């Protein structure tokens, strides 16, 4: 049984935990996200297993590798999900999509929702493990007599995936971009509740602001609830700090493409690794200076160039400098500016798969960019110890939603959309890159990739 890995995202829900990490492949519950009411459980309980994978099978979340050696068939790369594919991916509870071509399963309702309707039976008869146009998984054909009169135990796959993930862990690569002093390192440390980013609390005499943008990747292993996450924080010191900042985004774009290239190279190897190490940037947090006016020209330029290459999540840094009205006004202005200039930040509207996605993401998009405050210090407030900033006129509580939107950002990035970020990176950004590379040369000529010169790995 496979989880769906088509060029769109299927999101495995992650009920919130201390950082939500332990539940990445958790039971298909719908947690209550801070942004909205919990959705109906039935939707999540469906496991749609439409296998439609454009292009080769590469690395990705470990559970994608659970299937056996799937044949790669030359398929014209389809980086973007077309409208037609959308509805087929996830079925409505109990519904069946009789889609053409390699469809292994139909979306079925799991025992939780009662016995499967008869429509499923007909669809199930389509189960044929034939390598066709799209790579499929060789499966044992199920009997036609699949009236679920009893409990089969299909839902235990969730548990199996969970166990696998716990064993292998997963990668997450987050990049932070913004002028120095905007609190990038503090925010990342606050997000993952650990010292994953070395604070450059002032450039020392010996350590000046770099003349060009540097890329510094530092890896950490974070463990929670038995799940290991290999977190890599990619810092970009020097961005926007010079007098002349022309093209200062180029080293960043180059780095991102290099990671795609690295992955591509692994993917096309004859003897491939079982699990390709994923160094691709899954998420880029872009820090906007809280001027209260508008975006800066550099912000616009950066996001214009990079929003098509990586998932950009803009955040308003050091938001404790704005009152509530100023915040709302500023956010509106920024959203408008981004829209007018055709910049799509994550979650991108064009990748919303269904109505549910759209409503949820619309809500998120309306409240972005999140105005955040970060801190690694704790203070006593009303008898509780909270993360915050102490000033003569009060204590700013980082996790208090009336003070700032840090909790929203954290839940968004880690608890609800972590998997989605990875999938969009893999299924869309990476595929776009791959398609471009394949089309450009009709093959894969060698491209120089900077290896470990620029990376510090502290594992």
């Amino acid at each position: 049984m496979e989880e769906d890995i088509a060029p769109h995202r299927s999101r495995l829900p992650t009920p919130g935990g201390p950082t939500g990490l332990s539940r990445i492949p958790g039971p298909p519950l719908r947690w209550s996200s801070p942004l909205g009411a919990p959705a109906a459980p039935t939707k999540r309980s469906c496991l749609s297993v439409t296998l439609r994978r454009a292009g080769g099978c590469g690395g990705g979340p470990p559970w994608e590798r659970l299937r056996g050696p799937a044949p790669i068939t030359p398929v014209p790369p389809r980086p973007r999900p077309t409208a037609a594919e959308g509805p087929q991916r996830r079925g409505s509870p109990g519904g069946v999509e009789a889609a053409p071509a390699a469809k292994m399963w139909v979306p079925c309702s799991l025992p939780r929702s009662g016995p499967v309707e008869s429509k499923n039976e007909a669809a199930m008869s389509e189960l044929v493990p034939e390598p066709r146009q799209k790579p499929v998984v060789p499966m044992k054909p199920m009997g036609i007599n699949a009236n679920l009169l009893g409990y089969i135990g299909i839902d235990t796959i969730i548990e199996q995936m969970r166990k696998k993930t716990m064993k292998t862990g997963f990668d997450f690569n987050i990049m932070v971009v913004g002028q120095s002093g905007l609190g990038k390192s503090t925010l990342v440390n606050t997000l993952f509740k650990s010292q994953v980013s070395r604070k450059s609390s002032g450039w020392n005499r010996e350590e000046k602001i770099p003349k060009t943008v540097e890329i510094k990747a530092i890896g950490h292993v974070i463990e929670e609830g038995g799940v290991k996450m290999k977190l890599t924080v990619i810092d970009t010191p020097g961005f926007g700090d010079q007098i002349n900042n022309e093209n200062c985004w180029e080293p960043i774009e180059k780095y991102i493409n290099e990671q795609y290239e690295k992955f591509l190279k692994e993917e096309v190897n004859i003897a491939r690794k079982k699990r390709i190490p994923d160094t691709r940037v899954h998420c880029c947090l872009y820090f906007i200076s809280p001027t209260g006016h508008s975006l800066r020209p550099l912000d616009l330029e950066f996001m214009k160039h990079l929003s098509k290459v990586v998932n950009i999540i803009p955040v308003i840094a050091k938001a404790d400098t704005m009152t509530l009205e100023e915040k709302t006004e500023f956010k509106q202005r920024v959203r408008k500016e981004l829209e007018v200039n055709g910049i799509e930040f994550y979650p991108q509207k064009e990748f919303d798969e269904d109505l549910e996605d759209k409503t949820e993401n619309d809500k998120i998009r309306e409240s972005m960019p999140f105005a955040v405050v970060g801190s690694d210090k704790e203070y006593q407030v009303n008898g509780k110890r909270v993360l915050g900033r102490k000033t003569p006129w009060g204590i700013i509580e980082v996790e208090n939603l009336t003070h700032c939107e840090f909790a929203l950002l954290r839940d968004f990035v880690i608890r609800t959309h972590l998997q989605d970020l990875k999938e969009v990176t893999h299924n869309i950004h990476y595929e776009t890159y791959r398609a471009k590379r394949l089309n450009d040369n009709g093959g894969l000529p060698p491209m120089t990739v900077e290896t470990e010169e620029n990376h510090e790995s502290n594992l």
Partner: protein
Amino acid sequence: RKSVKKGFEFTLMVVGESGLGKSTLINSLFLTDLYPERIIPGAAEKIERTVQIEASTVEIEERGVKLRLTVVDTPGYGDAINCRDCFKTIISYIDEQFERYLHDESGLNRRHIIDNRVHCCFYFISPFGHGLKPLDVEFMKAIHNKVNIVPVIAKADTLSLKERERLKKRILDEIEEHGIKIYHLPDAESDEDEDFKEQTRLLKASIPFCVVGSNQLIEAKGKKVRGRLYPWGVVEVENPEHNDFLKLRTMLITHMQDLQEVTQDLHYENFRSERLKRGVLVPVIQQLHTEVLEVT
């Protein structure tokens, strides 16, 4: 007494990246709204814009003392992606005012020379950074021989007290490291009273000033104060424990005269000697010069 009747003229230039709170601070300092119809351009417009010079004059009268204050604003500074040419416009403006004064001074009718020279420049440093940026350093070095620089950190409500101290120290260290000459308050005369001496000491120790500007009245502790209302508390503009606004205002008012003098005696004279070395201003003066040279 006569000068009091005549009134004072003072030109204050304000320089800093957009969004650092410059306009709010100026409005707060002089309890006025100098920018009533202000439109803030978006990022796309800023890409095309170059640095502008906008001078607004306001007449303030308090207890019989008239002040004709000109605030010279520099929108566009620090906005562009490439700020290499950021300060050309500003330096030209300062030089132009000197040139004009020199011309008037060398002219026949010297009774009513209008002094539009820039007497003081508030340079706004971002509270979000770790200290001075390369642009800050370059700009200050380019104008420190032409105008009195008073470094100011606005939007100081984003800093905790410790961060504030650290930032101030950092900036002072960097100013010294790069040899930037900022305006130094003169020490109090020995015949001044203790209070004044103490005040001067305090002022000197607080540079650069960390200020918060606002003209909004907020209810705090039973009274109405100018401040900013946050969910976690109220920042009071005129509370010395919250920020250095009062110190900045005091410094400006009590040292207005001194700022003018230093501009005249130091910066203007610098400009004048450089200028005269380079070229002829008025033939009569040139002749006098050559005569002096012939004598020596």
